[in-house]
């Protein structure tokens, strides 16, 4: 009996060792496969997330709701001061509104003069933020719109005001947005005041630095930064934020979007421009009409 027990125990340990080594090889293989052929494994990951996260939303929505209530409740404690602030802000807003109305009229007049037609492709899809990356090392959020809604990889996502990030990974019902602060995020931007192009490179902080500026002396804190549209990934002219300067002299972006509270994001439906592949024919040479061939 004792020997029997012993042998079965030995079998168990041998089997355990076998399973353990198989698992180790499997995991190592998975990691290497991901390293070599990342898009395919990422597609599998997106499919899993697509299955899991929307089904979990019944549990998350009351929790996030409660958190928001708590946050609003905290602001009640200093309601008087807030009221004063709001009143002051409202006065400023009235001035701004007047300016905006004038600008609008002026703009309408100028557009009329130019006969400009706005790009009809600039429509947007609004999605609700389902989940964030859940780790201090990544800056991503998950939206509840996906392939079903026509989302395509690479589209820009913004909140009401400014750019938030871009779509990277689309599932059937969900899609992932890499925020501007993520370490793998690079966005081509333009300084609006002098038209210099640069890159906003995410480094896991709330104010990503501006890199590859040609002449940083002519850029001042407060300058507006918009996307340049270089590379054809983003439409140009989406507001990113304003330039700020750190005490060490480094230029960073203060993002226009409210990254503290991302609830609804707009995904901008943007088709890249059609490529012009032919060099134009000679001037004056008429193309052969199909009728003449028949």
């Amino acid at each position, binding site marked *: 009996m004792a020997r029997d027990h012993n042998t079965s125990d030995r079998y168990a340990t041998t089997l*355990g060792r076998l*399973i*353990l080594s198989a*698992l*180790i090889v*499997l*995991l*190592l*293989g*998975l*990691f290497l496969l*991901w*390293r070599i052929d990342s898009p395919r*494994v990422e597609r599998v*990951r997106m499919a*899993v*997330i697509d299955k*899991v*996260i929307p089904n*979990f939303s019944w*549990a*998350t929505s009351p*929790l*996030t709701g409660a*958190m928001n209530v708590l946050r609003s409740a905290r602001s009640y404690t200093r309601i008087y001061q807030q009221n004063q602030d709001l009143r002051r802000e409202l006065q400023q807003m009235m001035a701004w509104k007047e300016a905006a109305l004038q600008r609008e009229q002026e703009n309408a007049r100028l557009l009329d003069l130019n006969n400009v037609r706005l790009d009809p492709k600039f429509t947007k899809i609004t999605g609700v*933020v*389902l*989940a*964030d*990356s*859940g*780790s*201090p*090392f*990544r*800056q*991503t*959020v*998950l939206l509840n719109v996906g392939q079903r809604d026509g989302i395509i990889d690479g589209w820009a996502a913004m909140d009401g005001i400014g750019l938030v990030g871009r779509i990277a990974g689309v599932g059937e019902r969900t899609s992932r947005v890499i*925020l501007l*602060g993520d*370490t*793998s995020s690079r966005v081509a931007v333009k300084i609006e005041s002098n038209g210099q192009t640069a890159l906003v490179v995410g480094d*896991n*902080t*709330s104010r990503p630095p501006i890199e590859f500026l040609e002449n940083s002396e002519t850029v001042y804190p407060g300058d507006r930064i918009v996307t340049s549209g270089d590379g054809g990934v983003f439409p140009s002219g989406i507001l990113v934020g304003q330039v700020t300067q750190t005490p060490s002299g480094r230029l960073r972006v203060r993002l226009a979007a409210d*990254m*503290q*509270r*991302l*609830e609804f994001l707009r995904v901008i439906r943007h088709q890249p421009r059609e490529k012009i592949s032919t060099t134009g024919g000679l001037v004056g040479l008429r193309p052969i009409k199909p009728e003449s061939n028949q």
Partner: protein
Amino acid sequence: MIEDPPLRILRLRLTYLIIIILVVLLQTLPIQTHPYQFVTPNLPMVITFVWVMRRPNLMSPILITIAFLFADIILQRPPGLWTLIVLCASMFLRMRALSFRELIFLYEWSLVAIVITCSFIVYHFSLMFTFLPTHDLKLYASQALLTVMIYPIFIWIFRPMLRYALSQTLQKQTPKAVR
């Protein structure tokens, strides 16, 4: 040595899986979309180590692999790497869990602390060697420190659950033990 009835083992394993999945999914709640000002401890890891040290017979490698592969996939980590590290670490701890049962808690804690620190170092350097973007060691160091600090708390939290299971099996086993 007391052996649990298979149903209880299954139930405790399921409990473990559900706890890990809940912790991972709660981490992804969109409450904090701002970059973190401070790092958070790695809860799935510390829960696993507590369970390994207290109930080494429950924690099969397959169970740990399933739980952490799920976490890897949801939390956007390189799939497999962190799972591999935690699996090796917990198997290392499991081999020593029974011998640490009789010693005072400080020894156990320091062993776990060393293992946690080593895991983070290995993770950092394997990311570096595969040319993946990694973060500064300071962030990992503070996360490792927090994870170590939180270990006794989780020992305390899970003590009733794990001990209750043991005492109940004892009562169930006594009539059979006469045989």
